[in-house]
């Protein structure tokens, strides 16, 4: 049981950590820059939202499967497949939770006051420093919200995971897959226990969220 929870957290945490830099970058591209092909980019990142996760799973199976280039590279480098490992679970969780994280970040980035970025530039900060020290901290709330939204979604990810990582107890079975298995076997009370664990995890995430927001606010108002 502890193993199951730890695996779930590991998968979701890794997925979230992979997503953060990409989501911040894409969020910035879409939220604060006027780039060409914005629509195409937005479509690509939003797609996992509009498709049933199982279908996303099949795409991933083809993309990182044994016979794919990525699968081969993994074989070559680590002597191991990606599919049917917790890495595959993390990839699935990452892809599916990405649109949520990035959307929240886009909105937050759009809310940042240009005058402040301009001030930073006039004080000698280049675009990257301005981004890291001004823009990013100014969308702290949205950023934290986006990251934790992504994390919660990653913890709950089921459809794509079961396809690309399978439902292998002790190896790739995360809490949602375990819940599904229990429900399939009619073991309702065991399923309920797992649902309670999911709920507790969600609550802990929300408490961390609050703590981060309060901490950020306190810091800036000290």
């Amino acid at each position, binding site marked *: 049981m502890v193993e199951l929870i730890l695996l779930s957290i590991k998968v979701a945490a890794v997925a979230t950590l992979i997503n953060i830099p990409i989501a911040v970058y894409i969020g910035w591209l879409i939220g604060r820059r006027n780039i060409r092909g914005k629509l195409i980019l937005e479509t690509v990142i939003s797609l996992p939202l509009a498709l049933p996760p199982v279908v996303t799973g099949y795409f991933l199976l083809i993309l990182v499967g044994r016979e794919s280039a990525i699968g081969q590279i993994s074989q070559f480098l680590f002597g191991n497949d990606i599919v*049917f*490992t917790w890495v595959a679970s993390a990839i699935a969780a990452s892809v599916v939770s990405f649109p949520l994280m990035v959307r929240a970040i886009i909105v937050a980035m759009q809310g940042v006051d240009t005058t402040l970025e301009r001030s930073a530039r006039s004080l000698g900060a280049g675009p990257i420093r301005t981004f890291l020290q001004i823009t990013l901290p100014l969308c702290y709330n949205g950023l934290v919200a986006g990251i934790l939204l992504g994390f919660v979604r990653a913890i709950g990810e089921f459809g794509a995971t079961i396809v690309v990582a399978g*439902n*292998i107890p002790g*190896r790739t079975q995360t809490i949602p897959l375990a819940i599904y*298995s229990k429900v399939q076997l*009619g073991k309702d009370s065991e399923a309920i226990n797992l649902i309670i664990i999911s709920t507790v995890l969600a609550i802990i995430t929300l408490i961390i969220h609050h703590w981060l927001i309060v901490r950020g606010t306190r810091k800036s108002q000290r």
Partner: protein
Amino acid sequence: SSSCGSSDEQVVVFAAASLTDVLNDVKKRYELEHESTVQFNFGGSQALAIELSKGSPGDVFISAGNPPMKFLTEEADIEISSTSVVAHNSLIVVTKSEEIELDGYSNLLDLDLIAIADPSLAPAGFYSQQFLINTELWMDLQDKLVFAADVRAALNYVKSGNVDAAIVYMTDGMTEPQLQIRKIVPSTSYSNISYPIAVIRNKKTSLSDIFVDFLLSSEIEQLFLSYGFK
């Protein structure tokens, strides 16, 4: 921990979800007696077949019913060893209340809603459809049938009171003691529900073969019977 991929001492078995409990028992016994370990990937048989066809690294496939196995060989061009049968199952009708009178299958016509697994998505649905066609109920029940995603969903529809009855496997019915099992489906009205097992070719065949042999032993046959299989 076994965090990265299948080690060489492992057999990866893709198995129908309905076999979860019994196979977990099998695994315990197998690993006591053998060097190698077994990893299960449980899911809907059709979904598992699709995954295998898309390159999922399973060594052994145990399907609920023949259609997924057929799909694998005929439509997906996956090479498998010759198949054997691990167990059999049978169809029953479950209801929630005892009051519903179901003396024979023709009483199904008196009900409002009946759930079956979706014939195109799940083997259980395929067999249920066979039964209803062969008993000439199919046409008359058209408006009363609810297709569930899988056999477990059909069972849950009964449990939650959203349908009056569902046609499910015996083994599934046995997991829900509070439901009424009605053995009113003639075993002649549908094909033999077998659980075929096959080794996916070009995989770790020797280990896989050992596991398959173990599974087919008489000791294990007893185990399956205790779970309601035939």
